[in-house]
Structures are given as C-alpha cells and as structure tokens.
C-alpha cells in the first residue's frame, strides 16, 4: 500500500505541508518496503484555480491508496473519495511522526472536507 503525504520538502525528515492542493511535494511512502518517492506538485502550485482537483488527480494516478495531510477542501475531497483514496488529517509536524501515528491507528479517516473551498 502506498500513502501520499503532503510535504514541504523531499524526505520524511522535513515538515509536512498542511495544505493539500498547494503542497510543495507529495511523498509516496510504500508501507511494505518503507521506500519514499517524491512526486512534485509544481503544476498545481502554479494553477490559477483548481489546484486541489488537479493535485488529487495526480495522487490518484500515482496509485496511492491513502493521503495524509493537514487540511483537505471539498473539491479535492470529492475526487479522492470517488477514486476510493482514504484521507487522513493530522497535525503531525514531519513525515516520521505522521507515519508513526498512521501505523499506530491513531489517525482517523476523514468523512468530509474540513475546510471551505476557494472560488465559491
């Protein structure tokens, strides 16, 4: 199982990015091997609108089955939900802490977006 974490950098040591759509990078963490792959979110960062939708689509295409992030808006949440990707919200500071909480079963799956959308 692959999990996408929103990160400000390119490793689990770095601070998590609390934003989903405009996160700097996604770290694709492989639960089986512990390997981490970096997926840049440049395209969504530069989008005038719809960053969440686009980022969610990239995450879905990456094959991730779950997302760990700080906040998730309604449009990104709709895309992830329709694709069957689970969303976990956390206040964890870095990737290691987030994964520890995730593995310990301390992260609760979100059943709705937790922030308002933009442009509407």
């Amino acid at each position, binding site marked *: 199982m692959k999990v996408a974490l929103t990160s400000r950098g390119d490793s689990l040591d770095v601070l998590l990015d609390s934003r989903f759509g405009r996160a700097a990078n996604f770290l694709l963490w492989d639960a089986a091997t512990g390997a981490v792959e970096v997926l840049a979110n440049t395209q969504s960062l530069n*989008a005038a*609108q*719809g*960053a969440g*939708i*686009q980022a*969610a*689509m990239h995450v*879905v295409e990456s094959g991730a089955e779950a997302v760990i992030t700080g906040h998730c808006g309604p*449009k990104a949440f*709709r*895309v992830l939900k*329709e*694709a069957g990707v689970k969303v976990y919200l956390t206040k964890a500071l870095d990737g290691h802490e987030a994964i520890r909480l995730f593995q310990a079963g301390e992260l609760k799956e979100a059943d709705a977006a937790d922030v308002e959308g933009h*442009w*509407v």
Partner: protein
Amino acid sequence: MKIAVASGKGGTGKTTLSLALAEALANGCTLLDCDVEEPNCHLFVAGEPWRQLPVEVTVPEFTNDGCDGCGRCVRACRFQALARLGKRVLVFPEMCHSCGGCVLACPHKVLREVPFGIGKLEFRHGRGFELISGVMDVGHAMAPPLIRQLKEHIPPEGLVIMDAPPGTACSMVMTVRNNDYVILVTEPTPFGLHDLKLAEATLREIDLPCGVVINRADDGVALIRDYCHEAGLPVLLEIPYRRDIAEGYSRGGGLLAVCPDLRESFRTLLTTQIPAILQAEGRL
C-alpha cells in the same frame, strides 16, 4: 448612445450617478445594472419586476458511455473543471468557463453540454426609464457570462446607461466594452485617486474615451482636479459633499430628490457635453 458608469474604487457613487442620469433624462432610456454580484439599482425603483428571465450557461456532463480514459478533455480544460479517474470524468460546474473545449476535444463524444443556471435578469419600470438588473445566484463566480446576456437586451435605439461593478477586472471590462463613453466616478481621497488611475489605465488599454465625475467634492477636491488636468482627463461634473444627499440616499430617494438643480446639469452632460467630447475626438 451607450454610456457606462465605472469607478475603480467601490462606494464612490456609481449607482447614485447612474440612477440620477437615467432619471434626469426621463425619456425612456434604459439603465442596466451590471454589478451582478451585488445589484442595487432596483432598491431605488418601486415595485416588483414585471419580467424575469433565467440566465444559464452550458457546462459539460459526463455520459458514462464509451470513455476510454484518454484524458484529452482534462488537458483541454484551462480551468481545472474536470478530473479523470480511470474511465470516468468528474465535472466541477462551478469551475467551468463554458468554453466547450472539452466537448470538442473528446474523440468518443462522451461529454455533452447541459444548461447550468447562474442567475437571472429582472426588468422593472423606473421613473422615466427601464431598469434591467443582472442578478447572480449566491455561490456562483462567473459574472462575465451573466453580464454578456444582460447586454443582449440593450435596445437598438436610445440612450443606455450601464452601472458597472467596481474594480478593473473581467466583469468591469465586460460591462464597459462596446460603450461609446465611460464616466468614472471618484471621490477626493487618496484611495479614490489611486483606483481612478487604475480604471483610467484599463480604459486606455481598450481604447475607450472617459471623463471624471467627482462625487463628495469637498475641500480636498484639488487632489482629483490636479490629476485630471495633468492626465488630460475632462472633469465633467462635481457633486457636493453634503449630509442631506447621504440622508436622501439612505431613504431610497435618490440624488435628484435632494438636488433637483442637478437635473439640468446631468441632461447637459448627456446631451451636449459628452457628444461634444466624442465629436472633438473624432469618435462620433
């Protein structure tokens, strides 16, 4: 002739002036309230609308039949209104600019255009003029298509006044374009001047002639007068800064009820001053 009333800064008196101009002429001219996000001209016109028309745009709908997940529709969209999930496409109508690009790009014809309501037009009889207001539904952000449909109701003859939205973005440009002249209403404050310059620069960019009406003209009026003189902008009129005007407005009475002497100035502005300026510039 078509004249738009714009300002840059909000709250300088666009609606006050637009209504007073339409009322001063009182010859069956048409007033369009193009501030569709927050139309307010109708607050000064008694009665319910005699006609209402829905305003719709078209958005794509996924028909679920024959999609092979090629993603051409998503790549064609400049507004991230579509998301592809395998052989499915999710549509976000609120992001869509109704360009139809995705429908054209789809080789399998699995997207079709369906109507999507964004607001309505309301028609009212004013005091000597017809008012048509564009009203956008709450929660929508696509003002330009609504303004475009509002402007389709401009009568072929007669004077038309358009109350523009504040700012200098798409909805303001959509309102002022194809007008013969733009009146910029400002107030003698640094903010008023700053946004007047933005509005002026926008109009120069699209080659529209404009002049200035200074509202709430008080001791500081030289700030605007001096700038207009430097920039070669005609100052068409000054409306004094008086408490009774604000009180009249608060009661929904309009400017002419308090300052009937301005009626003649407004008439002159519309029938003599502006045509003379356009003639001098070779635009008439």
